């Protein structure tokens, strides 16, 4: 089995449009929530989201290319370029820095929903038309959820495995696991992985609204995403992309790449319980964390930080903490826990990807990102847990675990470790 290391990361989020900006946002505890600009939300219960703003896709991408792509694909490609430059595959001027063997490199990049915006627009155009079907020929290639992976494989000429994983809000975690397996089993030398999501649209907001999944705190949107707070009232929809360049240790060392962290272990499990509610005792989530530690050969006492799924929903937050307590036993009181969704919102299929980036940044920069927006303790939450409320903490992080769970009861846990040769 090969060891899997991370050599490049890219981030596009409401709290930062690049890795350095994202790091700054995580350290300072920035809220990404703002009024929705992508459509008029006047009639919707929720009128805010963690939108990516002040963002110029042409910084990395060709104008001609952009017009063929859904917003989620543009975001995936943008974050991929940042990651490929950091990995030293591309130079800062966009030229090739390292010639990959194309047959040994691939792209597994997730999206939970895909190009909803493109589909919505075409349906609206059709409904407003004469009834003659006139669908844009790019509708299908914009809409399908695999196109982040597809376009990244084309942009970098990666001829190894490329596809998307779909498990709702856990999609990015499953993508990373699949990509890491390709390297672990020697099927590829380098993989581009992660996720992208962009569904701040009428259907996205309206659909989650009718599930009562979203916060409706329109009068105080900056503090609406408040995981573990007694008054949490749902998640805040985010958008963006997170990309990781991962490769075998041999491959990274042979080309002299800087290693950011090691992908130590990961595991998937299922609740087998309900379409959207989590298992009340966190039964499935516990298995994912336990198996991830087992595969990593890491004991609960060695974990310094858990980046939770923690979406700020009444049921989900407490069920996850129960699962964490079951998986970690008494060691749970010696580690830090936080939900960075309090800052970025919930990026659905890209959540695991940007939260993996947060874990890697925590290891590199020796800090715990905070759970911001904490006002009132929830009596149902064990006060002895260190949920890193409101302020980042300086702390050496050698091992960080990232949880993500999706509608359908899909769970994924990934462990990153400081690299030691």
């Amino acid at each position, binding site marked *: 089995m090969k060891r899997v290391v991370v050599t490049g990361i890219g981030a596009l989020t409401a709290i930062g449009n690049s890795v350095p900006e994202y790091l700054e946002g995580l350290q300072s505890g920035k809220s990404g929530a703002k009024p929705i600009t992508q459509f008029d939300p006047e009639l919707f219960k929720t009128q805010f989201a963690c939108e990516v703003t002040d963002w110029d896709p042409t910084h990395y991408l060709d104008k*001609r290319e952009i017009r063929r792509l859904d917003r989620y694909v543009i975001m995936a490609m943008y974050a991929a370029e940042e990651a490929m430059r950091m990995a030293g595959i591309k130079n800062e001027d966009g030229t090739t820095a390292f010639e990959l063997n194309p047959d040994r490199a691939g792209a597994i990049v997730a999206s939970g929903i895909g190009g909803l915006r493109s589909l919505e627009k075409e349906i609206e155009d059709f409904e407003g038309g004469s009834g*003659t079907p*006139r669908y*844009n*020929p790019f509708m299908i290639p914009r809409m399908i959820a695999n196109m982040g992976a597809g376009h990244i494989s084309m942009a970098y000429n990666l001829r190894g495995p490329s596809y998307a994983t779909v498990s709702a809000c856990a999609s990015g975690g499953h993508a990373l696991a699949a990509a890491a397996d390709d390297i672990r089993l020697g099927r590829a030398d380098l993989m581009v992985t992660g996720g992208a999501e962009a569904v701040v649209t009428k259907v996205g907001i309206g659909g989650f609204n009718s599930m009562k999944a979203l916060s409706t705190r329109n009068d105080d949107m900056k503090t609406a995403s408040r995981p573990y707070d007694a008054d949490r009232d749902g998640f805040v929809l985010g958008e963006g992309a997170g990309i990781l360049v991962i490769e075998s240790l041999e491959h990274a060392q042979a080309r002299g790449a800087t290693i950011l962290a090691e992908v130590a272990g990961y595991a998937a499990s299922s609740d087998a319980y309900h379409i959207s509610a989590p298992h009340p005792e966190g039964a499935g989530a516990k298995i994912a964390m336990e198996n991830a530690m087992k595969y990593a050969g890491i004991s609960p006492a060695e974990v310094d930080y858990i980046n939770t799924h923690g979406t700020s929903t009444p049921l989900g937050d407490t069920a996850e903490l129960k699962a964490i307590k079951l998986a970690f036993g008494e060691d749970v009181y010696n580690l830090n826990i936080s939900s960075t969704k309090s800052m970025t919102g919930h990026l659905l299929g890209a959540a695991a990807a940007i939260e993996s980036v947060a874990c890697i940044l925590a290891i590199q920069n020796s800090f715990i990102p905070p759970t911001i927006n904490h006002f009132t303790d929830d009596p149902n939450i064990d006060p002895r847990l260190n949920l890193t409320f409101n302020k980042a903490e300086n702390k050496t992080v050698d091992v960080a675990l990232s949880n993500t769970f999706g509608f359908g009861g899909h769970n994924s846990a990934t462990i990153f470790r400081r690299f030691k040769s």
Partner: protein
Amino acid sequence: MASIEEKVKQIIVDKLGVDEAEVTSEASFQNDLGADSLDTVELIMEFEKEFDISIPDEQAENIQTVGQAVTYLEGSVDK
């Protein structure tokens, strides 16, 4: 008011992201302007929308250059 030719050129510039200078009468969408078959379908749809006409598939297949588009539209659009 812009002529049909001007409108056609503007649509091509917008949709294919090319410089206006490249959009000559002889320029072929696929051979000279970097379009693929999907771009060509999209261009036809944009012409239909702009000029409020319907271009049958068999006619659309014969529209491969800027000049062919302008000629076809000048013959079909009510002035």
